[in-house]
């Protein structure tokens, strides 16, 4: 096992990786941008190396700085987390060439799976079902309009080199192709310098079901069952669960077998996720994420397996050491992403300083969070602030537990996606398992769904009154207000 690893990431995922490493007796090195010098991942690492720069493009995205930090700190391996350089084959190659271990799949597997077209070809060759559509990328508007006629609407446009939902557009009729192409191609160009778009049939009422897989360096491979991630908007997931309502044991076995075949086809090593579009018992390969997923904790809660530990073990050359039948799923888990965005106004990004913070706790509630009091939430980094994960003996229990946990959460100073998640959890259709990837977009989130509008108004008024009174009294009155608003009639015992 490694003596010391560098985690080339920030936020909750950097912390997540460090926690397991520490538990394994592996020292951790954090890297940080100037913006993150007081971030939790910086403070809770064993060592920390400044990268300089405030923007990701000046820090976490600069491979040479990461490699230099690894050298300076004596790290033997690099864990990339997700995002940033996690799916950058050139960086993975550079890590290996620097004599370090890359805690991730081989660069060639990243390359193939990172290209929509190449991966589609490889999967078709391996007998993995794919969605009907064109294999070649679209160059311009006219080509797109022509191709569209052949595939039939609705059609999905995706950046050939992009990932993570950026640059994706769904076009429902021929007249929409032009605008969609311009914006999607523009996004792709500005994000990765490649404006080519990939076109495929958009599967209606589809559900997003993905398989967690793990391959060691000795030919061994297991899967850890599926996750369902259909609660999403613009391909950004909000709520994930394990297992999926629509997958039974027989189907899980079949999907697992196909997922492992997909990995073997590209010589995969390490942990990865094979995403499928699922529709009425059929499933189509969507893409393979060649890294740890944001939503990996729901799999961990249900299988009892620490996926980061497995990543480190496999990367250091260990065999998986257990068989598929040793992976036992128990109960049901949900994850809700706490993003800095405002569901009331279409999930616009929200910025601010986190002044007030109350995290949920109690039985079977897991909080993977990088939040701290005083944290600044800016525009330049991923909006994911925290993940609330719950486990329950069955799906219904887990839903109620998540509602309870979210009701305990307060993140003051920035707007979050939590009210949207609560609204989803309240929907009878969701509770019955009847939903698809458009479910979230179909909800009206523009109004508050809570039941306490008049109370909120009263609290806001008393708060303003309280503030005004304090200003009048001048300066600090200690931590707590000396003033209490009361109009209580039903106290049964005199104070």
């Amino acid at each position, binding site marked *: 096992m490694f003596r010391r690893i560098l985690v080339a990431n920030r936020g909750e995922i950097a912390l997540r990786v460090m926690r397991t490493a520490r538990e394994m007796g592996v020292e951790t090195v954090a890297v940080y941008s100037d913006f993150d010098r007081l971030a939790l991942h910086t403070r809770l690492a064993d060592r920390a190396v400044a990268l300089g720069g405030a923007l990701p493009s000046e820090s976490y995205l600069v491979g040479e700085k990461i490699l230099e930090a690894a050298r300076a700190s004596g790290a033997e391996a690099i864990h990339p987390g997700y995002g940033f350089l996690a799916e950058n084959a050139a960086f993975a190659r550079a890590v290996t060439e620097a004599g370090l271990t890359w805690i991730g799949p081989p660069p060639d597997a990243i390359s193939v799976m990172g290209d929509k077209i190449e991966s589609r070809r490889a999967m078709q060759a391996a007998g993995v079902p794919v969605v009907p559509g064109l294999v070649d990328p679209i160059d311009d508007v006219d080509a797109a309009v022509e191709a569209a006629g052949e595939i039939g609407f609705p059609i999905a446009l995706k950046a050939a080199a992009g990932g993570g939902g950026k640059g994706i557009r769904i076009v429902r009729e021929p007249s929409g192709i032009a605008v969609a192409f311009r914006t999607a191609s523009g996004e792709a160009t500005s994000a990765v310098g490649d404006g080519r778009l990939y076109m495929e049939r958009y599967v209606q009422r589809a559900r997003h079901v993905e398989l967690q897989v793990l391959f060691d360096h000795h030919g061994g491979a297991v899967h850890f069952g599926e996750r369902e991630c259909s609660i999403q908007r613009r391909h950004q997931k909000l709520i994930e669960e394990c297992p999926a309502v629509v997958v039974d044991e027989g189907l899980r076995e079949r999907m697992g077998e196909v997922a492992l075949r997909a990995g073997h086809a590209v010589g995969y090593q390490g942990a990865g996720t094979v995403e499928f579009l699922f529709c009425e018992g059929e499933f189509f390969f969507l893409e393979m994420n060649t890294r740890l997923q944001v939503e990996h904790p729901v799999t961990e809660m249900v299988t009892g397996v620490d996926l980061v530990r497995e990543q480190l073990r496999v990367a250091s050359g260990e065999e998986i050491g257990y068989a598929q039948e040793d992976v036992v799923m128990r109960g049901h888990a949900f994850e809700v992403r706490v993003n800095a965005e405002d569901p009331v106004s279409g999930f616009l990004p929200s910025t601010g300083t986190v002044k007030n913070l109350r995290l949920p706790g109690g039985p079977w509630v897991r909080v993977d969070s990088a939040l701290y009091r005083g944290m600044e939430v800016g525009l330049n980094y991923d909006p994911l602030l925290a993940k609330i994960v719950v486990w329950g003996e069955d799906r219904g229990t887990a839903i109620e537990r998540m509602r309870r946990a979210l009701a305990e959460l307060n993140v003051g100073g920035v707007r979050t996606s939590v009210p949207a998640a609560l609204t989803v959890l309240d929907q009878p259709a969701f509770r019955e398992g009847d939903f698809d990837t458009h479910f979230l977009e179909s909800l009206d989130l523009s*109004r508050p769904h809570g039941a306490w509008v008049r109370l909120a108004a009263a609290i*806001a008024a008393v708060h303003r009154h309280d503030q005004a009174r304090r200003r009048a009294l001048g300066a600090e009155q200690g931590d707590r207000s000396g003033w209490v608003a009361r109009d209580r009639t039903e106290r049964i015992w005199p104070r």
Partner: protein
Amino acid sequence: MKYFARIAGEEIEVELVERLGRLSVSVDGEPFPLEYEPVDALGQVGVLTDGLSFGASVEGGGERVAVTIAGHTYHVEIEDERERAAHAAERRAAGSGGTVSSVMPGVVVTVLVGEGQQVEEGEPLLILEAMKMQNEIVAPGPGVVTTVHVEQGRSVTNGDPLVTLREAEE
């Protein structure tokens, strides 16, 4: 003191009367029993109303207050009587302008219209990138562009004016 709160379009009137160190609260004219006490200086408050208990949080100040109750956040625009009167006067003075403002912080990727150009309702005015997503900003109604307040590459924040339109001449 009267406060006028607006939550998602709904207007709620709250009256506070301080008597003998206690505060009586009425909401829309009806008595509203409320016990309110800050727990810390950070936003946590204890609230009791009619036997019901809430571990609420309240943040912000001035005319924008956010109240979180059981996981749901209520964004409250709130004015006291004095502020309400002042704002009414401002609105009368301003007339019916037609400026499209940014509702999020971001960077202008492309400006799609020029001054003097006639636009239809829903027509894209510009593309704004925020959190790496591109968003089309469209005309709220038909009109003629009188001013473009931004140029490509410009960073904007919440409330910054983007494009001013005047009503199209029929």
